[in-house]
């Protein structure tokens, strides 16, 4: 069956040149969708001097909208001023589906709001778990309720994440699809020559912050070193808790048994991983841990805390789970050490190729897009009345916000109608006349 070809706009605050779970997800998904002959455009904020339109591998077009990041890589939340630029990009690229990523990204929420105002179909992917009780989570959940009040479909990266998202936003569960991340197994191959098993090397690569369980590491490493004289640790990553790890090293005189590498650039992660036998992940909360996939793809046996979506990620013979308690983790590491002779890295790598594949993720995402396009286009009042359910006061506020957004959009339609005629020009003469000069002229956006 000849599938319909979509023109997709991925929008998020988090993209290359930053490296992280969300960034990698967007990049790999876009590349696989391009291979499936869809058109993908990524919209994100400017990173340093990198501002304007850039092209990445495979013809992936990235709009680095010239806004500076405000706090924690997010752009400043302006409600309505982002409508003109988003509208311009949507019309210019003749987008059919808008796909936003990460609940923490203000650009994503704004773009989804404007896209819904303009009547586009919207898909949202949530990559993180949030709580319900602290002040930050309460506000974040309210913003999420606003965005997801009128979304076409939603995607979560694990089943635990789906439960969390459904509870936070009140979406019906049938609207939420579970499509996990995957790993680039071509990049993460095990070593050709395995490191010798006379000395067991345990690798830890994570940001050394509270959320990633750095405090657990401080408790676990001395115990393991004491119980197993032939075990060595390699700790990669940086963060505020690094000081405590260094102190632990000094206190127990483990300088020759615990190696601290500092921040590891993404290109060198594989070389650090293949020098080890076991990968230790001690996070306190994870929606879906890609680091574990990378380690398994390199043939390492994983020991992890049983939190969030981690139990769903790998089959039981490739991962050993422990409660986030130092004693339990030490026992799990001992079990892993005893299981190590039965582990063959090449076999594990081939299994990972079967289990996780970005092309599979792209195909499943296509199904979500098909479903999203089948949602009927409702008129303004039906759509906007959904926002009233968001809360006693918040509902009315969101209602007003969407009405104002709609009015602003109609004003832009009258005022900036030249964009519509340029669109007609390209439609008539095809995209081969993709003259950059013409684009910049009509965009009116300061580019490169």
């Amino acid at each position, binding site marked *: 069956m000849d599938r319909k070809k979509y023109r997709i706009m991925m929008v998020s605050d988090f993209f290359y040149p930053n490296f992280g779970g969300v960034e990698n997800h967007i990049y790999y998904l876009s590349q696989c969708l391009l291979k499936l002959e869809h058109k993908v455009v990524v919209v994100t904020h400017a990173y340093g001097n990198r501002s304007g339109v850039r092209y990445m591998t495979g013809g992936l077009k990235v709009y680095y909208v010239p806004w500076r990041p405000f706090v924690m890589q997010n752009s400043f939340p302006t409600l309505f001023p982002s409508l003109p630029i988003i509208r311009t990009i949507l019309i210019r690229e003749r987008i059919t589906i808008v796909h936003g990523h990460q609940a923490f990204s203000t650009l994503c929420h704004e773009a989804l709001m404007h896209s819904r105002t303009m009547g586009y179909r919207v898909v949202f992917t949530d990559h993180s778990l949030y709580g319900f009780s602290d002040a930050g989570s309460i506000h974040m959940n309210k913003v999420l309720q606003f965005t997801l009040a009128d979304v076409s479909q939603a995607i979560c990266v694990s*089943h635990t994440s789906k439960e969390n998202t459904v509870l936070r936003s009140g979406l019906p569960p049938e609207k939420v699809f579970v499509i996990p991340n995957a790993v680039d197994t071509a990049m993460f191959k095990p070593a050709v020559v395995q490191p010798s098993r006379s000395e067991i090397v345990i690798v830890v690569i994570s940001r050394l912050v509270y959320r990633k369980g750095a405090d657990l590491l401080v408790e676990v490493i001395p115990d393991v070193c004491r119980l197993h004289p032939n075990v060595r640790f390699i700790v990669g990553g940086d963060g505020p808790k690094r000081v405590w790890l260094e102190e632990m090293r000094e206190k127990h005189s483990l300088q020759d048994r615990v190696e601290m590498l500092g921040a590891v650039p993404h290109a060198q992660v594989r070389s650090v991983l293949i020098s080890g036998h076991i990968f230790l992940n001690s996070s306190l909360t994870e929606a879906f841990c890609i680091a574990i996939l990378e380690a398994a793809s390199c043939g390492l046996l994983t020991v992890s805390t049983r939190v969030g979506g981690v139990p769903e990620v790998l089959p039981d013979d490739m991962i050993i789970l422990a409660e986030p308690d130092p004693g339990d983790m030490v026992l799990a590491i001992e079990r892993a050490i005893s299981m190590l002779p039965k582990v063959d890295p090449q076999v594990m790598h081939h299994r990972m190729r079967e*289990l996780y594949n970005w092309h599979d993720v792209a195909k499943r995402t296509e199904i979500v897009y098909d479903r999203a396009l089948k949602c009927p286009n409702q008129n303004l009042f039906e759509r906007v009345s959904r926002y009233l359910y968001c809360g006693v006061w918040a509902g009315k506020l969101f209602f007003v916000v969407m009405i104002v957004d709609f009015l602003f959009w109609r004003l832009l339609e009258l005022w900036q109608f030249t964009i519509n005629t340029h669109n007609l020009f390209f439609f008539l003469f095809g995209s081969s006349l993709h003259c950059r000069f013409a684009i910049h002229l009509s965009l009116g956006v300061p580019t490169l």
Partner: protein
Amino acid sequence: MFWRTLNERNPNRVALRLALHRRRLTQVLSAAAVPAPQHRRFFLFPVSRTQKLGRFSSALHLRWLLGTDPEAQPRKKPETSKLLVMDHHLASDSPQVRPRWRKVAYGGMQPGFDDNHTDESFLEGMVMNANVVRRDMLKVMLDSVSISEYLCIVALVVLVWTYTLESTIDESRLLCIDVSLLVLGFLILLFTQEKISLSILVHHYFLNISFFIMGLYVLAPIYQTLTRSISSDSIWALTVSLLVIHLFLHDYSESTVNAPGALKNPALTSCISVNASVVASVFIASRLPSRLHVFAIMLFSLQVFLFGPLVTYCIKKYSFRLHLCFSISLMVVTLRFVYMLHCLLFVLLLSLLVFVNVVCPYWLIRIQEYKFEINGPWDEAKLCFAITD
């Protein structure tokens, strides 16, 4: 027991409350993707045996979960009401046996199931209201007595300040009050703390207090001239605001001055409240004519603000009855003195005490029914050992 009887008495109110709860949760009525009756299926999840329901009656929660009017449907026992969420497409499945759905993320799409398949085990790990404390009206009222006791203490301090500023009380009488308060405080401490011996009393408390008093006496001239250039109106306004801040941020559960042997870091708010009270005392003291006045009033204020919480804490720890008698007598005495000062202030203080002691506990218990605490596998893990940061 209490909850069930409270709710059964007024079924209409319960229905209204349930409807409000439901509305807060269902944000989206996606008319196309999910036809209207189907959205209620969001709530038709079985209450599994492994789910802890806390102290709330499971039937009440199941009624909430069902999203039904409690009058319309008979109450079902939790064990027999295992409702299944059968998506409509499952009913039309082909008769061949397909593998069971597993809660895993690997292996691609599970054969026979869509990616948005919602299994029966959805939200199985959710735990509701696991840590909620059931509150009893009488106990809350008795606990709020300590708040009104402290309010009365502060009111008495303000009274003494007013009388001193009007020169109704002269410095010798003030000094007598100081000394008698000190002696009284020592006696109470001696009486109520079992582990204390005379030597500890002398070495720890007595020495520290004498250093403190000497320091105050030496610094009294500074306080006297501190705010000479500030107008009186600003002083009164500042003092009132500082006292309000002090009352707001005060740590009513325990004393701010640690009893010997207690190792606890005071919270930021209790530090701010102590500082606010000290600054308010300094402002008032700086309006007085002579050095001895200043010293006496400063000693009085600091005694009460810094050591008063410790004394009341010791009384409370020793015997609750004694604490209750002490608080009530203090309230009566305060009201009498305030009445003698000004009628309007008396009315204000009385209404404040009634509000704190009667209205607030009732209000708290009423809104506790809306409490909806959600825990589950998505929560951040709590570390069970102490973290030094």
